[in-house]
């Protein structure tokens, strides 16, 4: 009989929540400290092939050697690729949903050959193009904690928007 009482199916909710403490290590630590203390973006540079690494990592994946050289990059550069996100997703570090829409972009910073991915201040598809220039907007002194989010976002440079 279709009228038969539907079998109950039990659902169990659970929040897995494990506090962590991430050691930055000397390499990421230097990168984050420079942003926090000096509003500078630094990358490390492979002694063999010369490629710059953002985020800086202890080895060069291509040459398999330890990377100990550092270069300072300009806090501005060119958009090489971008994503405009219209669907809210959860930030697993906070457990909160992100606000949409937002744009994340890969930016080729002046002075190196590595791209950095960060948020862009534009959410209108018509106002973003690959090749546009943009600049880092740092959070004010005293509010920077040694995080990649000490760069609040990158802003598209005005002359570009008006073009």
């Amino acid at each position, binding site marked *: 009989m279709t009228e038969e009482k539907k079998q109950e199916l039990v659902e*169990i909710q659970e*929040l*897995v929540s494990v506090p962590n403490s991430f050691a930055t290590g000397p390499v990421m630590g230097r990168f984050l*400290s420079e942003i926090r203390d000096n509003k500078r973006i630094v990358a490390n540079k492979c002694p063999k092939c010369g490629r710059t690494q953002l985020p800086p990592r202890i080895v060069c994946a291509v040459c398999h050697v330890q990377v100990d050289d550092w270069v300072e990059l300009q806090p501005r550069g060119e958009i090489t690729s971008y994503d405009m996100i219209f669907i809210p997703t959860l930030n697993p570090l906070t457990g909160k949903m992100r606000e949409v829409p937002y744009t994340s972009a890969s930016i080729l910073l002046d002075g190196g050959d590595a791209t950095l991915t960060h948020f862009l201040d534009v959410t209108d598809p018509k106002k973003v193009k690959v090749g546009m220039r943009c600049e880092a907007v740092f959070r004010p002194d005293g509010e920077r904690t040694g995080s990649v989010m000490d760069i609040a976002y990158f802003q598209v440079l005005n002359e570009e928007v008006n073009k």
Partner: protein
Amino acid sequence: MSEKNWCFEVPGKLEIPFKYYAGEWGSKFLAALRDNMKIMGSKCPACNKVFIPPRSSCEQCFGKISEWVEIGPKGKVTSFCVVNYKEPYLPVEPPFVLALIRLEGADSDLTHIISEVSPENVRIGMTVAPVFAEQRKASILDIKYFKPAG
């Protein structure tokens, strides 16, 4: 450049919500706990063994299980430990006793809490009986804990 110690620590979290399904078979067990305060075991016809926690197939012979057998409510402690450390997921304040309990009619043990007895008086072989929660929600904690029973 001098060797500066650049390292510091960043607090973070692994925080993800989950939603698990007990499935048709498991739901029957949980509903029986909640609605009738009955503990049901799953009987494997091939091995002729009654298992708890419930399962719809036998881990040992891989056969299908389709028979329920009421077990307990009393049982005997087959092992126990006294939890003396703090963790956020522990169901009650430590120190408390976790035990393996062989319920009457079962061929495997249920892991559950023992209370209403001081930890130093818990013994292997001790008979215990369940105390059910007043507010039952189709959870294994609908059995609030087991307590010594004559």
